[in-house]
C-alpha cells in the first residue's frame, strides 16, 4: 500500500494550508447604488440632508446627524481638496500599487464628507494638506459602477485651499 518514492525528497510536513473563504452576495443599497451608477457615467453623485443641508458622498441614504432620509440627489464637482493624506511606504500582501504612493482624503467641492482616493502625478514629498486635485477617470468605454472607474486624483494646478475651508473635515 505505502510507497516511499516521492516522499523523501519533500521532507517532513511542517505546514498546512488552511484557507478560509467566504462567498457572499453584496448589495450596497439604493443610495450607494446611485453613487456607483454615477461613477459608471463618470460623475460623483451625493445626497443632501433636508434638515442640516450637508451633502454626503457616497451617501448611505440617511443623515447620521439628523436621522432623516436624504432624498435630494446632488452632482458634485470633479475637483476637490486634500484634507489629509498618508504616504504608503510599507509593502503588504495583496498590494496592487507600486510603493511609495499617496492615499488621501479628498473633499469634493460641494461635499461635506471626504472620501479616500489615490493621488498620482505628484512626488510624495510635495503632497500637502489643502492641495487642489481633480479626478482622472478611466476611458469612457471602461467605466463601471465601481470606484475603479476613478483611476486616481492629480493636482489640478489651482492654489491651495485655505485651511479654514476644510478644517472641519479632518
Amino acid at each position, binding site marked *: *500500500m505505502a510507497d516511499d518514492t516521492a516522499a523523501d525528497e519533500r521532507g517532513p*510536513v511542517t505546514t*498546512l494550508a488552511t484557507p478560509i473563504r*467566504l462567498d457572499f452576495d453584496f*448589495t*450596497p443599497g*439604493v443610495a450607494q447604488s446611485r453613487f456607483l451608477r454615477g461613477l459608471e457615467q463618470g460623475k460623483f453623485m451625493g445626497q443632501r440632508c433636508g434638515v442640516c443641508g450637508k451633502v454626503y458622498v457616497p451617501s448611505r441614504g440617511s443623515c447620521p446627524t439628523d436621522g432623516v432620509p436624504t432624498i435630494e440627489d446632488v452632482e458634485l464637482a470633479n475637483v476637490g481638496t486634500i484634507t489629509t493624506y498618508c504616504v504608503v511606504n510599507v509593502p503588504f500582501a495583496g498590494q496592487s500599487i507600486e510603493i511609495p504612493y499617496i492615499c488621501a482624503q479628498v473633499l469634493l467641492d460641494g461635499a461635506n464628507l471626504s472620501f479616500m482616493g489615490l493621488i498620482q502625478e505628484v512626488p510624495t514629498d510635495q503632497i500637502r494638506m489643502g492641495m487642489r486635485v481633480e479626478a482622472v477617470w478611466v476611458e469612457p468605454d471602461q467605466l463601471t459602477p465601481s470606484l475603479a472607474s476613478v483611476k486616481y486624483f492629480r493636482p489640478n494646478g489651482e492654489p491651495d485651499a485655505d485651511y479654514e475651508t476644510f478644517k472641519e473635515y479632518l
Partner: protein
Amino acid sequence: MPESEALHASHHLEYPYSRSVGPVIGAFLTGLRDGKLFGVRGSGGSVIVPPTEYDPTTGEDTGELIEVGPAGVVESWAWVAEPLRKHPLQTPFAWALIRLDGADTAMLHAVDSGGPDALATGDRVTVRFRPAAERIGAMADIEAFVPEGGAA
C-alpha cells in the same frame, strides 16, 4: 434597470492561512502523504489517533509514533444525503468516528458506503488513499474509508 433598484455583486473573501503543524501532527501528516496512518502512545499507554503532542487525560508529553490501521471499526456515523461543495465527497456519504486497528481513540472521517443501508455501527472499514502523486500531507489525502472487502 430602474434607477431605484439596488446593485449587487458577488464577493469572495479569502484568508490564505498557513499553519505550522509541529512535530507530532507533522509526522501524522507526513505519514498520510506516504500512505500510512500513525497514532501516538499516550502517557497511560493508550494509542491516540490522530496523534497529539500532549496526553489529553494527563497533560503529559506523548511518546513514540505507532502505525495503526489501515482498517478499523465504525463507532458512530451520520449520513450526509446532500453533500456541500466543501465536503470531502460530492456523492452521499457518512461522517463517521472510526477507531483504527491498534488505536484507542476514534478519528473523524468520511465513509463512502454507497448508501445508508450499507453502513452500521460496528462495521469494519478500510482506508482509501488518494493516488500518491496527489497526496500533499493533509487529511484530504484520505479520500474516504470504505467497507472492508466491500464493493463501494
